[in-house]
């Protein structure tokens, strides 16, 4: 399987602890809850994801049919999701609330509905 692990680093983050790289990230991932997210026109599955405040999780994102985007504006993180690759993001939410994510690479008639939500609880 042509699967490549990608890590994404972002600058100033609001509401999450960190995004880690390389071996450190892989070691950390072993302790983190893994959440797999699939992206295809025009839906993320799942598109409503409950997280616990302070819980370290790793998102493993896979696109099936297009280089969709994955953008979480409130956390100032985004990534392109090339088909055939697993894109990995490490997050630790530090505030409760609802956080929107969306595809920000225009992918067709239905793109505007391709979004989802993290629900961060105590």
């Amino acid at each position, binding site marked *: 399987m042509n699967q490549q692990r990608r890590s994404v680093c972002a600058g100033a983050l609001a509401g999450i602890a960190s995004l880690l790289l390389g071996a450190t990230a892989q070691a950390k991932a072993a302790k983190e809850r893994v959440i797999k997210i699939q992206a295809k026109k025009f839906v993320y599955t799942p598109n409503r994801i409950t997280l616990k405040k302070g819980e370290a999780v790793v998102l493993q994102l896979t696109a099936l049919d297009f280089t969709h985007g994955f953008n979480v*504006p409130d956390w100032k993180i985004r990534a392109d999701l090339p088909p055939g690759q697993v894109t990995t993001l490490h997050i630790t939410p530090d505030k409760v609330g609802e956080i929107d994510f969306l595809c920000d690479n225009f992918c067709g*008639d239905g793109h505007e509905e391709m979004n989802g939500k993290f629900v961060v609880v105590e």
Partner: protein
Amino acid sequence: MTDRRQFLKLTALGGGAVFMSGLYGQALAAGEQDFYFVQLSDCHWGYKGDANPDAAVTLKKAVATVNALEVPPEFIVFTGDLTQTTDDPAERRRRMAEFKDIIGGLNVKNIRFLPGEHDASLDMGAAFKENFGATHYSFDHKGVHFIALDNVSDPGARIGDEQLEWLKADLATQKKDARIVVFTHRPLFDLVPKWDWATRDGDKAVALLMPYENVTVFYGHIHQEHHQKTGHIAHHASKSLIFPLPAPGSQDKRTPLPWDPAMPYKGLGFREIEADARDGDFEVKEFPVVKA
């Protein structure tokens, strides 16, 4: 003496188009460089859905309303999403051909086009270029420098470094107090990022524009009238000609506002923009699809 601005205000208050017509002629005869143009946006030709059951005739009615303006505009600009997107390249071109056929009915033939993401993002602007020409360009009209920026041919909503370099070079030809108007489709600033109402590198374009004292941006994409400033730069979003969208960030999703059978075309329209040579201002007047 009543000036162009005053007569526009009178017109807005119901002063009437005849009065407008006469004064406009006087202003030009006196050698003023006042002029006005019309902005139409987000026609989405090819859309079929409940948000506009009259989609097959809305653009045609807008064309008729523009043609009925007492004083014809000096030019017309379409700020993107001329057509509804489709995965089928042949269908995309068919919709663009139909759009061109309809707007061919405009009496004014000086027309400028910009792409929206529905026109250009799935083929990097190929079909748009075939039908409407370049996706970014500049031109001058009666003392105003107009710049059309493409922030949609990249599906990731980037202007891109190459176009930004072109913008930098184009701006270098202008004095710092030049009157500059920018046309674009998406907002150049982060209006509502969670609704994809942004340009990923729009801040770089705004940074290039900031040293210039008189910059005004007219854009589309958000399907409603909206006005916001970044520093001294004013950004004016236009209504659409297909369906209105909710006020920025006012609800969870950016779903179209429902069609009101009692008030067809509510929330849709186009605008006149008057360039006043004496004070450098631009005045905006909104029009409905169908004149009441």
